């Protein structure tokens, strides 16, 4: 497979507004791709389409050769999405939340939450939730990692953690990252895109 | 079922008919008005 992510003329509307308009882009397998753009430019929408959380209205995208419109099960098996929703159950603790996705012990230590593993999520701060979401993504062992604002709400240590994890995953998986940290990510990204008003610039 | 013959009852018949016709008429008028607004 030459391109792990191949977006072909994808458009998506919310009500009367087109959030994405005829976006076409391709990310080679194993590469780290950066998608920049201001708030509301369609970054999250694109990642959510790639993760099959929402359907494109027009066009199609191939993830690992599978169509996000028709082969959603296969796409889901390959991808993991770090969304701006945490996907966590407030009433459960970190370990219980993660055990829905796999064996939690190793990753909890990896993201530095081992000490707080038994506390319910409702007592977590925003940064800790982000770390936990990160742990969830790692647990899914995805071939295509979709990171939506991975640096958001993290402390400087968290920033380093994200960088480390990305460099660990490089080569093993394809990474698509939507971020405002253009300079930081720009240093190590292989492919760069910029979205503006739902269109590729 | 009652055994005896029901006598009279025209008022019930009128009530049923006028209710039906009236409701359908009002609904139809509202439809026509709304459609006219669209088509223009």
């Amino acid at each position, binding site marked *: 497979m030459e391109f792990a992510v191949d977006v072909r003329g994808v458009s998506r509307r919310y009500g009367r507004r087109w959030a994405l*308009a005829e976006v076409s882009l391709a990310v080679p397998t194993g590469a780290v791709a950066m998608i920049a753009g201001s708030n509301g430019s369609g970054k999250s929408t694109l990642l959510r389409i790639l993760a099959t959380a929402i359907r494109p209205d027009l066009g199609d995208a191939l993830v690992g050769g599978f169509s996000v419109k028709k082969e959603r099960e296969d796409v889901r098996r390959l991808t993991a999405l770090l969304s701006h929703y945490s996907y966590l159950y407030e009433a459960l603790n970190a370990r219980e939340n993660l055990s829905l996705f796999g064996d939690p012990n190793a990753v909890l230590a990896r993201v530095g939450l081992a000490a707080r593993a038994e506390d319910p999520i409702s007592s977590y701060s925003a940064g800790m939730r982000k770390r936990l979401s990160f742990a969830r993504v790692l647990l899914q062992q995805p071939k295509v990692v979709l990171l939506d604002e991975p640096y958001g709400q993290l402390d400087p240590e968290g920033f380093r953690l994200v960088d480390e994890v990305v460099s660990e995953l490089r080569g093993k998986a394809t990474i698509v990252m939507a971020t405002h940290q253009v300079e930081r990510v720009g240093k190590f990204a292989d492919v760069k895109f910029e979205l503006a008003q739902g269109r590729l610039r | 079922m009652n055994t005896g013959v029901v006598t009279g009852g025209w008022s019930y*018949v009128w009530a049923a008919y006028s*209710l039906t016709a009236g409701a359908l008429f009002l609904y*139809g008028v509202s439809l026509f008005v709304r459609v006219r607004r669209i088509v223009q």
Partner: protein
Amino acid sequence: MIVMRERSIVPGIVLLLLAAWFGFAVALANHYGLDVSFGISTGLQAAIAAIAGIVGAVYFLVSDNLGPSLKAARLLVVLGIACFLLGSWYGLFVAPPEKFMGQVQRIMYVHVPTAWNGLLAITFGFVCACVFLFKSDWKWDARLEASIEVGVLLSFLLCCQGAIWAKPTWGVWWDWDPRLTTTAVLVFAFLGILALRRFVEDPLRRAVWSSVATIIAYVDVPIVYFSVKWWNSLHQQQSSPQTVSSQFYLPLRMNAFGVLFIMTGFIMLRSRIARERVEQELAPPLPRAVEMQEAV
């Protein structure tokens, strides 16, 4: 923009005329001493009338764009009103009173057509729901909304007529008769779906959810009927079908076709309105890249 696919009005009209012919024109002519049945037996006539009527109505319903001015819908409504007036006049003034129920029985000439057509409208809504879930075509969503709304209206009228009829015959406004109860449940179930459609702003979700809810509610209706029948089996009182002479079924059928035509026209008009709403809510087709740039 809605793409209007023009479809010929002729097959629908032919089917409906065929239905009306065997439905009541033959009997009407017979009443005045004319035989125009072409030697077809009465049973077959009734079958032809029913099938042609339903197929003709469905033909109109699935091509609710016979010209942008909706001439066909208006024509159907006018035709329906004519049939309904004729049938009602016949039923109210020409047909003799029934032996046991007297004049009150004349309610039947409006009650039974309402029941048939209300059920037909809801069934069409159910079909729309199934088709929408498979095809995700907005046309079917609009038809679903229209037919459910018209079906609820007819079923509500049915309940009222039932109550009006029940008072002189059974002495009470409401009897926990399976038909009455089922109709009431049906009205509430589908009213809930109409309310759901009002509350959901996202058009796609609204369409999918109301389709799902319609399918579930439709499946529920026969279960309700049987459970109420069971519940009621001790004091069950159903009018036994009696041999109905042409004098009784003539106004019945005229009105049935009248309401059928009116209903079809209404659904066509209503689905046009529903489509307009979806069109308003969805984004216009993608602007070209150049226009986007200018808009910035």
